[in-house]
């Protein structure tokens, strides 16, 4: 009874402070909106209109058709005509173009000859995406219609489920909820206790009857609400601006988000008991944030990572949330089908809060 009152008092106090902190409050709405716009628009993984150059030394009907075919695919856009591979290489180096097409004078003879490549693509390999595009371009059908040897037929046909238009916003936006929550939730609680220590509040607080668990739970409460607000913002913007489908149940999304929010907040609390200053707390948060982004499957596919990276990723809450949210939102899975991921988050929460409570001493030394 008294315990509940104390938790409520801490939560109310924390909420008041939060509401009065204009900048932080702005971040609650600002971060999700800004991030989703950034990721949704700027980080567009559908590559289009790469600047390309061509050096056509054959200059025949067929070679011109090749150039047109490539242009028609919209992946590249020819902005430069030059002579010889040297001209292309120079333009590549200067960054004027990212892909060069070199068509040698004996292009047509080479086309007939299976042993020799007919033309050459020069790609700026310093950007992995461009290299990928170049590899895709290699599969382009030959402009020579009478070339039965090449028309051997494709072995596989790709059928793209869940994201037929291959829009990256569809893949990114749901998982972005997790990235945004990692950024805000962990940081909010990471500075929460350190701030009280820095401002001298802790010296009074720990001489009161408030228990460590009460203090921790009270501090979490207002941020759970903040987290759910952020989830809602991302879902709304994602739905209306990027037409991200919602194939699962909205309730499941919130259950998953709740588990993830709890895990992230306690991770922040744990950081807060380790750090001596707000600055340290922020650094530690960043220390968690980067691997979360890189290893969680948000950016790179989980299965492609080396075993050690996978093991680290399994510990990070974001990994499990990315699986949950993609499952629910894009594949229409129910939370019941993804229970292992939920348990992983709940376990993380339990372990982190236990550690935080154990680490926190009601003392100054």
């Amino acid at each position: 009874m008294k315990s509940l009152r104390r938790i409520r008092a801490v939560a109310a106090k924390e909420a008041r402070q939060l509401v009065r902190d204009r900048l932080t409050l702005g971040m609650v709405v600002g971060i999700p909106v800004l991030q989703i716009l950034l990721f949704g628009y700027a980080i567009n993984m559908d590559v289009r209109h790469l600047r390309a150059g061509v050096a056509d030394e054959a200059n025949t009907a067929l070679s011109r058709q090749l150039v047109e075919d490539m242009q028609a695919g919209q992946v590249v856009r020819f902005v430069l005509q030059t002579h010889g591979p040297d001209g292309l290489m120079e333009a590549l180096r200067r960054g004027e173009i990212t892909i060069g097409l070199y068509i040698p004078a004996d292009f047509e003879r080479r086309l007939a000859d299976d042993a020799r490549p007919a033309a050459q693509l020069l790609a700026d390999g310093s950007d992995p995406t461009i290299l990928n595009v170049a590899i895709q371009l290699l599969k382009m059908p030959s402009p020579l219609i009478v070339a039965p040897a090449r028309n051997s037929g494709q072995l596989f046909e790709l059928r793209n489920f869940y994201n037929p238009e291959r829009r990256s916003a569809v893949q990114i936006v749901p998982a972005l909820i997790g990235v945004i929550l990692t950024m805000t939730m962990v940081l909010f609680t990471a500075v929460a206790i350190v701030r009280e220590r820095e401002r001298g509040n802790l010296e009074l607080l720990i001489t009161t009857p408030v228990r460590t668990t009460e203090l921790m739970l009270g501090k979490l409460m207002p941020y759970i609400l903040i987290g759910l607000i952020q989830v809602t913002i991302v879902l709304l913007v994602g739905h209306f601006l990027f037409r991200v489908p919602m194939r699962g149940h909205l309730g499941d999304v919130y259950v998953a988000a709740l588990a993830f929010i709890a895990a992230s907040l306690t991770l922040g609390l744990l950081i807060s008991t380790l750090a001596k200053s707000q600055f340290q707390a922020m650094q530690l948060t960043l220390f968690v944030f980067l691997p979360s982004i890189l290893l969680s499957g948000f950016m790179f596919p989980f299965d492609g990572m080396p075993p050690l990276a996978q093991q680290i990723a399994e510990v990070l809450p974001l990994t499990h949330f990315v699986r949950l949210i993609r499952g629910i939102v894009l594949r229409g899975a129910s939370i019941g089908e993804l229970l292992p991921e939920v348990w992983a988050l709940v376990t993380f929460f339990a372990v982190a809060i236990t550690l935080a409570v154990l680490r926190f001493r009601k003392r100054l030394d």
Partner: protein
Amino acid sequence: MDIAITASGLTRRFGAVTAVDHLDLEIPKGRIYGFLGPNGSGKSTTFRMLCGLLRPSEGQVKVMGYDATREPEAVRRELGYMTQRFSLYDDLSVDENLEFVAEIYGLPRRDKRDRIFEARREYRLEDLRRQRAGTMSGGQRQRLALAAATLHRPALLLLDEPTSAVDPQSRREFWESLFDQVETGTTILVSTHYMDEAERCHELAILDRGRVAARGAPKTLMNDIDATVIEVACDRPRQAHHVLMTVREVRSVTQLGSLLHILVDPTMTDPEARIGKRLEEERLPASVQRTAASLEDVFVAATRMSREGPAS
């Protein structure tokens, strides 16, 4: 008599610094006990050990019958602690801070409103109810901190320099309220740099570099001062000051306007005549008189002596 606090051999080191050095204390219940001491003499560190915020490097401390190191929670139930640095919330208003403290201490709902109301009246916070603590003046903030520390009616109050920024009028009122609380059985431990406040305590300990340099009731301390106090009135006090500093037995000289207040080693025989003569030799005619010791004299004598060692 009932004892509120006992400490024996209480010591706290921070690396090479010994902040509190084998302190022995016995503080009876229902009294105002004062800590007087220069900056860094270990007052705040002692307070922190009393409420279990810092663990002693050595020694024992019992507060209200509980071991402060092993059962800090039991001690804290009995305790109201006002920290030297303001430690309520700057971004909360007076009412919100008091409300928070009341909830944390689990005051019965019926009492809560009454107590907050009384506290506001007692510490003259009525006009500041909605003001954020961070925007209040130093003295207003200290009054709020005090209101918060006494809200749950603790049996023991630890006040670390509670009036360092409070105006004289408020200080008087504040001390009146302390005596009211003592009347109801509260024990109060208070540190201060003000002599007039120290003089109002039932008992005092003068700390110097972590040790007790002198202790006792203020009156007793003044009567038993280990020095002769002399007052010199002369036309050129600055010159007289320099001359007096060359006298071996003179321990300290304080100028008060055109008066010089001097502490002399008690072993010096007939100090008035000898000091008068010394000033005469320098053509500084003066009237020299013995006078009663003030508490400040006691403080200066005690902290100086332990600095130079009692033998000198």
